[in-house]
């Protein structure tokens, strides 16, 4: 046993729903109840060993019904992945891919090839619950990463520090932890040897390791002397005494918004090191931890917010609008703002909140009631009840409920004087209530 605490309280639909938000993209109809029936251990097992993927629901398409072209059409990479998030039967696998996309944040702004970005994405999907050492090796030679951080520019003739620095600072050790500027330079030397060619009309091709470009000299990395290569570099970063604490803290932060206590952190580190850097046991232990179930809610990222709304509505990808809408809310997939990934502490401000308003509007758009055609009761309580039922009766806190009641009261009050308003305002009020609920604090976090 790892000695990491496990949640021992009731595991009902509410707990299962939170787990589905943290380890996936929120529940579809009936999923929280089904997961709750498995119990905590059964639920975690189902998420971490999901079996073969089944895609549930309609295939994605653009506004004219044409299939997506994720390698070629601008924005269709985002839509393609959003569709996987919505339709997958392996939510944790997709969620881990999102974790690694943020951890090894690579932007197509620097890569310039949706195909290479999607290949990297597939690596994260296949290796995301495997072994971190293996993952680091694969990322280090991944073509998108080689382009993004100049790995294939780095040669013995002309060292380039970009990947060597971020590998330690952002991927394995943390800023200034257990390495210095000289290690950055030496690590860059160890990482030399990757090359690629560029062909007109094709782009970057023929990614390879060419020993002729590798600096075979002796390097001193972390005070150890040797003729280190890129494989040594990966191994030495992962076995570095400061790596496990970095890994655990960073991985934890993707699932729980409050930091782990000291005993939890050291227990998870033991689990990680004794497990030879396997990712799945650490993630399983985090998903079972009491802090996930009893702690504060966590802000949803824009992609999670969007995928979650669509899963709840049972709606698939049928418009390309999600690209600019998620971008407006601060998260276009495959375009993280920089190599540090997205800043999750800043998902909500006056600019990105407006993006979420528009996401909710787009999610609800096909369901909007036509006030000229669709009669609804001229009764505030019934309209609120109907709006909550539309969203499957979420729990709202008192201030939100009070705001909705006040709105309904005022809007129906405006209709008192005129008969046509008494017919047309109720459906409009219902539309507005659905939208307001979707933008409420209760829907922004889970």
């Amino acid at each position: 046993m790892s000695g990491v605490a496990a949640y021992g309280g009731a595991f009902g639909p509410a707990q299962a729903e939170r787990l589905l938000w943290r380890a996936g993209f929120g529940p579809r109809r009936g999923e929280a109840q089904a997961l709750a029936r498995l119990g905590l251990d059964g639920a975690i097992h189902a998420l971490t060993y999901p079996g073969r993927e089944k895609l549930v629901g309609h295939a994605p398409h653009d506004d004219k019904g044409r299939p997506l072209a994720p390698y070629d059409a601008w924005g269709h990479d985002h839509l393609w992945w959003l569709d996987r998030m919505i339709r997958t039967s392996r939510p944790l696998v997709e969620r881990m891919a999102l974790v690694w996309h943020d951890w090894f944040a690579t932007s197509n702004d620097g890569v310039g090839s949706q195909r290479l970005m999607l290949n990297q994405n597939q690596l994260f999907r296949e290796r995301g619950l495997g072994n971190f050492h293996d993952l680091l090796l694969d990322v280090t030679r991944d073509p998108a990463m080689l382009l993004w951080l100049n790995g294939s520019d780095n040669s013995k003739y002309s060292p380039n520090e970009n990947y060597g620095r971020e590998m330690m600072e952002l991927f394995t050790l943390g800023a200034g932890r257990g390495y210095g500027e000289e290690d950055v330079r030496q690590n860059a030397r160890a990482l030399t040897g990757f090359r690629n060619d560029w062909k007109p009309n094709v782009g970057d091709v023929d990614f390879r390791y060419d020993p002729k470009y590798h600096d075979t000299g002796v390097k001193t990395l972390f005070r150890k002397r040797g003729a280190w290569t890129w494989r040594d570099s990966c191994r030495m970063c992962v076995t570095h005494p400061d790596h496990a604490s970095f890994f655990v803290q960073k991985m934890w932060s993707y699932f729980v918004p409050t930091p782990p206590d000291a005993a939890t952190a050291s227990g998870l580190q033991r689990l990680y090191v004794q497990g030879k850097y396997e990712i799945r046991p650490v993630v399983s232990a985090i998903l079972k931890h009491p802090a996930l179930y009893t702690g504060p809610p966590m802000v949803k990222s824009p992609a999670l917010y969007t995928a979650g709304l669509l899963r709840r509505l049972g709606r698939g990808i049928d418009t390309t609008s999600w690209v600019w809408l998620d971008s407006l809310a601060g998260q276009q997939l495959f375009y993280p703002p920089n190599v540090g990934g997205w800043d999750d502490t800043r998902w909500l401000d006056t600019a990105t909140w407006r993006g979420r308003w528009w996401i909710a509007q787009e999610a609800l758009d096909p369901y909007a009631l036509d006030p000229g055609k669709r009669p609804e009761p001229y009764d505030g309580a019934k309209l609120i009840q109907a709006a909550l039922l539309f969203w499957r009766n979420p729990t709202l806190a008192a201030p939100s409920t009070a705001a909705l009641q006040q709105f309904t009261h005022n809007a129906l009050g405006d209709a008192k004087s005129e008969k046509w308003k008494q017919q047309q305002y109720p459906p409009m009020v219902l539309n507005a209530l659905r939208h307001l609920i979707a933008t409420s604090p209760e829907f922004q976090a889970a």
Partner: protein
Amino acid sequence: MSDCLHCDGLSRSRMLHRAIAEAGRGLPSIEPGMPLPAGTGLSRRAFLAGGLGAALAVYGGSRLGLSAFEEGIAAAATATPGQVLVSVFLEGGADGLSVLSPQGDPLYTKLRPQLALSGGTPLTEDARLFWHPAVGGIAQLYGEQKVTVMPAVGYTHPDQSHFTSRHYWEVGATDTHLNTGWLGRYLDVVGTEDNPLQGVSFDDTLAPALATAKVPVAAITAPDQYDFYSNNVWGEVEERMLETFGRLGPVAQQVDRLRNQLLPFRAKDDGTPGFQSPVPYPKSDDPFPNKLAGLAAMIAAGLPLHVVALSAPGEYDTHSDEAGALADGLQLTADSLLAFQRDLEARGIADRVLVHVWSEFGRRAQENGSAGTDHGAAGTGFLIGTRASGQMVGEFPGLQSGLDDDGNLIETADFRAVYSALLEQWLDTDAAAIIPSAKTFPRPTLVKS
């Protein structure tokens, strides 16, 4: 960017995408050894039990009653218009040795065999330095005594991490734990609880330099694009809906305040733009020129803006193939800043605005083998405006003795000294309350008296 094959409905998204590509980029996630992000005072992604946003200190003032915002706007509208400081960030570590190339330094071409520039306009105050042709707009303003040049600004014991170094610049101290921005702390001293526009990021997210502990600040992409819509909700019901969403948590409350502040800048239903500029701005897919145009219009309209942050267009983390990428970014940035200055002058408000251009570090003197440069230390900064002193701050230390052990330029001016002087000479506030150890820094002359 690749060509768009299925472009229906995507012209707007392309535009937005480019906006995002250049827009302000928050601090990275919190990891061991990495600074806490300015502003939140929170552990990562946390929400306190009180609900969404109650913990977001950047939206301080959330306890304020709803009616207060109207009074706040009314009060702000009648207040005497004050000074405005505009912070323009060249993200990625701009290569100062190309912005002002030391062509008169004998080591320059040795260190930069591929990248060395030649020719151009020399700097009046130091004949060794030449303006990059792409920043001709700034050089022109310099010729008019409207630019203060800092040829080697930085700090001792430079950190070569993008994230750590920009954090230092953002919080105004070499302190990884400080989590309010230097401009945010200034607003906490002089700001009010009802005016999100007092500190505004023209970016897709809030600039960490503006992170406050008490008073609200805002992020907008453009003043004329702050609209809210809901299908099949119109007329009185729509008005009721819009007056309601401000009650759905503190973030929404600030959104609602801002929406009201920006109503005059909305494009009209007949397509008339929400504002007009008296001078032409560069035409670009990048929104930067339009953001500056909107900013000038907002200041001219008397909106209560005080400190403003923008990210400059361009890619400055030039590890490879530096020359073209750097020139493109610098050109659009400098041309836009020139247009902004002319706009302010045409509107008669140039004396109220000062622009500070900065980057988290400069780049190594020796180029790398990819026709690029790696992370360095001291870099180039500018202050632009009719009230800028026009006197160089610090000096160019030379490539012979002016490099540190890592081969990076040694600073001859400290960014905290610059901040302290800006606070005192431009914002009329005692720097001691804002910048840690402010009294230990000399005060360069940044503003014409």
